[in-house]
């Protein structure tokens, strides 16, 4: 059934047992909404120099948006901001692929499970909500901190 291509087991697992959910200390906070369906996320980023020390979030939304926030946390926390941005861009490209992309599993790991979601235009925004919030929060956090050259 086609549904299984969207609701991969990995996605349902992340939905049922989300990683890193809840709000903790951060350097910047953003609130993003998806006005068409009412999904919302409040997301905080804490940086430790060039490293993403924590991504914490409180969110309300469908399984796709919840699972995607969980995958974001799992993939990006502990990496450098630069690596995180590369992953974010690869994920964005995959979600914009209209079902054509497969995603680089080395880079995206569990996030490749979202390839099937890219076939459903109404759901792409759900998958991207937390990632766009992270991008925004990170830009804010970077703007608010002294430049680190390392």
């Amino acid at each position: 059934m086609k549904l299984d291509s969207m609701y991969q087991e990995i996605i349902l697992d992340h939905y049922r047992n989300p990683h890193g959910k809840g709000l903790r200390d951060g350097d910047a906070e953003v609130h993003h909404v998806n006005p068409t369906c009412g999904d919302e996320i409040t997301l905080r980023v804490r940086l430790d120099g060039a490293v993403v020390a924590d991504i914490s979030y409180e969110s309300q939304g469908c399984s796709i948006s919840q699972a995607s926030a969980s995958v974001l946390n799992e993939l990006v926390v502990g990496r450098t901001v630069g690596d995180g941005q590369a992953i974010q861009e690869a994920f964005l490209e995959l979600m914009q692929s209209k079902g054509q992309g497969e995603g680089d599993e080395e880079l995206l790991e569990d996030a490749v499970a979202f390839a099937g979601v890219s076939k459903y235009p109404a759901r792409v925004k759900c998958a991207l909500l937390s990632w766009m919030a992270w991008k925004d929060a990170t830009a804010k956090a970077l703007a608010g901190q002294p430049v680190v050259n390392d």
Partner: protein
Amino acid sequence: MTTTSGSAFTALTGLLDTDAIRKDFPILQRVLHDGKPLVYLDNAATSQKPRQVLDALNAYYEQHNANVHRGVHVLAEEATALYEGARDKVAAFINAPSRDEVIFTKNASESLNLVANMLGWADEPYRVDADAEIVITEMEHHSNIVPWQLLSQRTGAKLKWFGLTDDGRLDLSNINELITEKTKIVSFTLVSNLLGTVNPVETIVRRAQDVGALVLIDASQAAPHMVLDVQALEADFVAFTGHKMLAPTGIGVLWGRQELLEDLPPFLGGGEMIETVTMGSSTYAPAPHKFEAGTPPIAQAVGLGAAIDYLANIGMDKIAAHEHAITEYAVARLQEVPDLRIIGPRTAVDRGAAISFVLGDIHPHDVGQVLDEQGIAVRVGHHCARPVCLRYGIPATTRASFYLYNTQAEVDQLIDGLHHVRNFFG
């Protein structure tokens, strides 16, 4: 897996001949994913269109197309007659005292905004200014909230609203504090698009009349489904939208009492709405043309006329009875689904055929997606009535909404579909 208990129920009485009606709607013959017939339960968002309406649109463009009110040639006269004929049909459909009280707009949102703007620019006694109060309700569609917020921000008028009871009705307990001598306009929906609630028009209109406030009724979810008699409602303005009542998109109606339409100023200026124009100033055509600047949606109005013919031919009372039977059945069957909570009245009394619900903690988006896979079209989200979701502490709902072509079997399919959703996410 899923169980069909539909057979345990006896067939409903008072239903329309849906087999015959469905043949008029080409789209209802569509088959979706893996051979699943379309079960269209998103009628509160927009209705499907019968062949009679599609034919009227085609015939208009193939035979009569011209601009209205401005040519002397045959086509211009035919187009004008068709456009003005549609106005006569609307007037009869809503029992308007005069055809000149029927203003064509592009949708209900434009109709509602038109009233807000008329009142913002009006002279006394209608003028909404810093001393005035505007009253709406917490169950309005955003189209009947935002225009009043804009008016309030621009004029300084105070915006007030009726709250909701736990079972999805208007809380009228403070009506006398809400609607006061300061109130200039009370605007509320006759039927809620999210909750399905049918509101007590008479109580609200009485109070508004007592204090001399104008009343605007948003009949977007009523005009398609029940007998609408603007004289019986005793409102000053009634707004609705064509696409929810079998007509094409791009056509709406604002009905207003003649004296008011004479007194109130135009909002949009342009061709068609004038009497004479000099470089210094203009005088205006009488209503309804005063409020119809520019080339109107001609074909769409003709389509609305054809839709009204179709509905009237079946009979709005029969359509209302059909939907009531389906709603009663659906409300009962939905409550058999474990963890399902109806948001809105849990009976079919004073209730329209839009039923919102939440299913455990499965997000409506996911409910809608799995139903779609089975060919069942419902709407998910906040349905442009986000304050209602906030009121009941939920992010969104799933909404099934029925119309004259929906069947008891489709309710059963919805219920089976919901069992499947539970299994899928269980």
